């Protein structure tokens, strides 16, 4: 038998931070949207806002324009700062395609 050993070419991955902890419930929470304004986000996210408000009385869902929108803006530090400053419990980000 001939044995051939060779390097794994994929390199190391570092997980430097954990994902945000999940909420016990959406009810009564403050939820925000970060929208790239593409891929029908301008239609889908308002629909999602409406069903959240319908399903969870007492929930506060911020309007879509509460934070900067667009592909070029949503990844900026300033957007992250504004999200934190708003005091939301969670954000939904869309749309990727």
């Amino acid at each position: 038998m001939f044995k051939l050993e060779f390097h794994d070419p994929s390199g190391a991955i570092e997980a430097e931070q954990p994902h945000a902890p999940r909420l016990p419930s959406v009810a009564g929470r403050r939820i925000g949207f970060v929208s790239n304004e593409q891929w029908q986000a301008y239609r889908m996210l308002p629909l999602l806002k409406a069903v959240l408000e319908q399903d969870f009385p007492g929930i506060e869902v911020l309007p879509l324009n509460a934070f900067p929108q667009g592909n070029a803006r949503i990844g900026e530090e300033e957007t992250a700062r504004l999200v934190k400053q708003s005091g939301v419990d969670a954000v939904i980000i869309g749309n990727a395609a």
Partner: protein
Amino acid sequence: MKNAVSGLGLAPDAARVTFPIDLFLPGSDITPVQTRRHEFYDGLTRWQPDFVQAASGAAGAMLAVEGASYEDALVKANNLLIANLWGDGLPLWPATKERVDWILRGTAFPRAHRIGKFPPRGGIATVESCAIALAMAGGRPEYLPVLVAAVDAFLDPASDSEQLQAASGSAFPVVIVNGPVGRQIRLNSGFGCLGPDPQRPAGASIGRALRLMQQNVGGALPGIGTMANYGGMRYTNAVFAEDEDSLPAGWQPHATERHGFAPGSNSISLVFANGAANIRRRGAKKETPEEDALQGMHRMAAFMRTPNMAALPGYENGTPGILMIPGVVAQTMAGLGWSKRSMREFFWQHSKIPAEHLRRAGCPAWIEIDANPMTRESLKLDPWPITSRPENFVLIVAGGGHPTNSYWLQGYCPRVIGREIRVPESFDRLLAEADRDLGCGLEACVI
């Protein structure tokens, strides 16, 4: 999505709700958002990541196959690489310890030297991972300094490779080499410089290795880590040298003009492009030299005068594209009084697009949503310049010594990134070994 999350330093999974592409198209039925709303709620409340390790794919990990013979083992190794989604469909050299150690003779850096995090997956690129990719791509030690410089430029945040790796626009890196290292390592700058050439094979290996790193370390797998619709030029990207020997008197090398590197120094310049077009530049009948030159200039400018909205991120400081002209054309143009600077000025003036043409093609909407205020402001201009200033055009003297054609690599490039190339002290010995291994000396190969 997993790739993107991992590249941000998070564990490589995320709470998400996925839909077929139809939902994301204009006029779609979006009621599935309502009927599947509980998946969103679960993502906010019950979802937990599967990924619990602090790190995976540790550097230096080895794989092994066994076969009845070397050839059998080689086949099994290639099958394993493909099964793990680490191949490109062409035969690969397994990156054995011996081959990787051999290639690492070509670097002045320690093998563990960290170059950066490769987007979107976030794999860590090191000098060793460059050597592994180069080994798989059939490369040689003397190619490694160019690849390391190219990877370093690629991972410069200003290149926006984080976006371009994953985007649908099929960006591919173009690596332009200046300095004597191009000739020394057998990089092509002449006939067929964007294609295969057994006399000058370095570009294919270096470009293929870069692509393998984009895929294997960076996670840019078609349809998974990269949404590139077409992925053209991605087997080997484009790696070539400027034909500095054919530069007319007074014309500076690209690296000097664009990056300020001293003439004669070794460097790379990395440009993202997403299109490639051959241009029939030469006249057909009884033109005077002046008419031939001017008509060719207009023909080239006409290729540039297209509503390439992918060039918008580079409107201020990037490039709308790379124009390659053969040395014989550069010499003729210089003889008629043209310089790189005056050619760029001509292209800038004559590639402008009438506002009405922009409007009917729906371009203002793209320009209006651009992040750069200067780009948005440009919408007031009629005709509209395809880039903010003439200096943004990349003009390279390269290609076979024949006057008929020039070549336009359409830009998708927020910034043109330059890097000096650092070679090891033993470089001359490596070049001598290349002469020994590859048969004919370089001069004997020149057509």
